[in-house]
């Protein structure tokens, strides 16, 4: 499978969604296919994610008997293998497993067995944002085995497995540097264990030029890291997630956010855009909302917007994008050089990245992170490192970050309400707005 074959050089559209039964999942997929989706989601329910299989199974049985939604996703380990295989083979599009499971081996084994071709997650991105106290050493071993399972599946089926990192992390005020470091370390992890074709990702930051700079930085850093660590040569795809923070309740505002993210993915030639619906603020979106939102994204992508050949074609945004991406690349290289100076064993690197504070996402629920790296939104809507919680940030980069705010960016001097306000979409930063 190649993405260009699916998408004709436009980002592949992947919505989100998981239902309590195979019948309901099939109905959801049908509505997504008819709206123009390119990749179908198989989002796993939160009970299965946390290994509470008997609870998930009871809820699945209840849903099958009553037709009601009893789970917030598809309980892959509670559904008979034959049934799940029939579900996957009933659709022609690739299916992506989205699950948030730190110890992912058994879930991924089942997913590959039933024909899933895209596996999201990694030892950092599916442990730190998704658990309070999951053991990182156990998670690393589990994900090492996931990579080996993906490698085996590729050899057996002849089909490429996409191994997608989840740089969205906690989805709130995540600094692009954190997304870059997680994506790069997990790409290296995948390649070192032969897991498949790596795909890095991150979620819309709420600031267009910073989004574009982050994508530019990814494109520069992935080949550098592969050379630096002498890893097997590979393409590295980029997935861009629509805004993952709180959504406005008004449909027009939500659509504006969706349109902005779609245009960024297209302008920057991302391989995939992972979409949201305009019903996000009202709970789990219905099939109708999913259908309408995919159709909306498809209409934007099909509207014939010219793809700039480089960031120099971006008009007034180009200088900001270039300066931002150069600063990100320089700081990421500096931190990765330090991190990899002691070892090139990816298991040790993942552990050290958390223990030494290189990976420290804001609002992370995991007890293992140092909580020394916090962020705030600057005047122009960009996400910047808080001067009183810089984590491993170099002095030069911290100085660069402060340039974007007239007042001191210090987390400690902001109230909870002010920080909660910063978590929302900053409408003022929209492209052209």
């Amino acid at each position, binding site marked *: 499978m190649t993405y260009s074959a699916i998408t004709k050089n436009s980002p592949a559209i992947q919505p989100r969604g998981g239902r309590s039964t195979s019948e309901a999942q099939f109905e959801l997929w049908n509505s997504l296919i008819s709206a123009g989706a390119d990749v179908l989601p198989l989002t796993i329910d939160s009970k299965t994610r946390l290994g509470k299989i008997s609870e998930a199974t009871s809820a699945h049985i209840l849903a099958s008997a009553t037709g009601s939604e009893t789970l917030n996703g598809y309980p892959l380990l509670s559904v008979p293998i034959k049934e799940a295989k029939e579900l996957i083979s009933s659709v022609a599009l690739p299916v992506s497993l989205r699950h948030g499971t730190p110890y992912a081996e058994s879930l991924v084994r089942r997913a590959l067995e039933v024909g899933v071709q895209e596996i999201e997650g990694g030892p950092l991105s599916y442990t730190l944002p998704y658990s309070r106290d999951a053991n990182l050493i156990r998670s690393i071993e589990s994900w090492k085995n996931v990579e080996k399972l993906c490698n085996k599946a590729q050899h057996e089926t002849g089909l490429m497995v996409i191994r997608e990192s989840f740089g969205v992390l906690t989805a709130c005020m995540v600094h692009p540097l954190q997304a870059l470091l997680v994506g790069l370390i997990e790409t290296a992890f995948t390649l070192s264990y032969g897991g498949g074709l790596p795909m890095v990702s991150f979620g819309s930051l709420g600031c267009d030029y910073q989004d574009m700079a982050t994508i530019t930085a990814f494109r520069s850093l992935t080949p550098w890291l592969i050379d630096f660590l002498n890893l097997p040569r590979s393409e590295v795809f980029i997935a861009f997630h629509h805004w993952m923070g709180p959504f406005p309740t008004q449909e027009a505002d939500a659509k504006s956010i969706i349109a902005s993210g779609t245009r960024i993915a297209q302008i920057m030639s991302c391989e995939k855009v992972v979409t949201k619906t305009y019903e996000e603020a009202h709970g789990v979106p219905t099939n109708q909302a999913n259908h309408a939102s995919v159709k909306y994204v498809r209409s934007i992508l099909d509207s014939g917007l010219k793809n700039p050949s480089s960031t120099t074609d971006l008009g007034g945004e180009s200088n900001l994008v270039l300066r931002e991406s150069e600063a990100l690349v320089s700081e990421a290289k500096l931190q990765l050089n330090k991190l990899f100076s002691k070892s090139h064993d990816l298991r040790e690197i993942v552990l050290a990245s958390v223990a030494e504070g290189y990976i420290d996402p804001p609002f992370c629920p995991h007890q293992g992170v140092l909580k020394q790296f916090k962020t705030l939104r600057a005047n122009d809507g960009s996400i910047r490192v808080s001067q009183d919680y810089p984590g491993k940030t170099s002095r030069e980069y911290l100085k660069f970050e402060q340039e974007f705010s007239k007042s001191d960016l210090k987390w400690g001097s902001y*109230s909870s*309400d002010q920080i909660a306000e910063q978590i929302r979409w900053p409408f003022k930063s929209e492209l052209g707005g």
Partner: protein
Amino acid sequence: MGNVGSDIHSVANILLEKELVEKSFLVRNLGVAVPIGEWVEAFLNFHPNLLLIGSMNGDLEPVVGLIQEVKAINSFHCEILVGGNLKLGSNGGSIAPLLRKMGVQVIGGIEEPSFASISNLCLDLTSRFKKNSFTG
């Protein structure tokens, strides 16, 4: 305070703790995805005056039910406030009426927006609890 069972959404939890601490509440934050046994253990150890329970996955009922039983058995006085997403799936009904019937105050949730901000909620809590002493 904390989030129940399978809920790992930490932002509101962290901001609420920050604000409560600044308002001089003595806070024991259990964090996210707190197992049911840990709620009971913490409840018995700390005898809180106020319990804030959140869930974005709608699975509040078992924890609330058990805590109410423990409260009754031990004759503890403790107010319970719950918030988050109070309905299951895209076609599930709201569990807010059930939770109210179980004797807890429902706040915040997506379909129960009782407070406009974290500071408003904390101001309300401060006015109701300022005369109480806290143990921890």
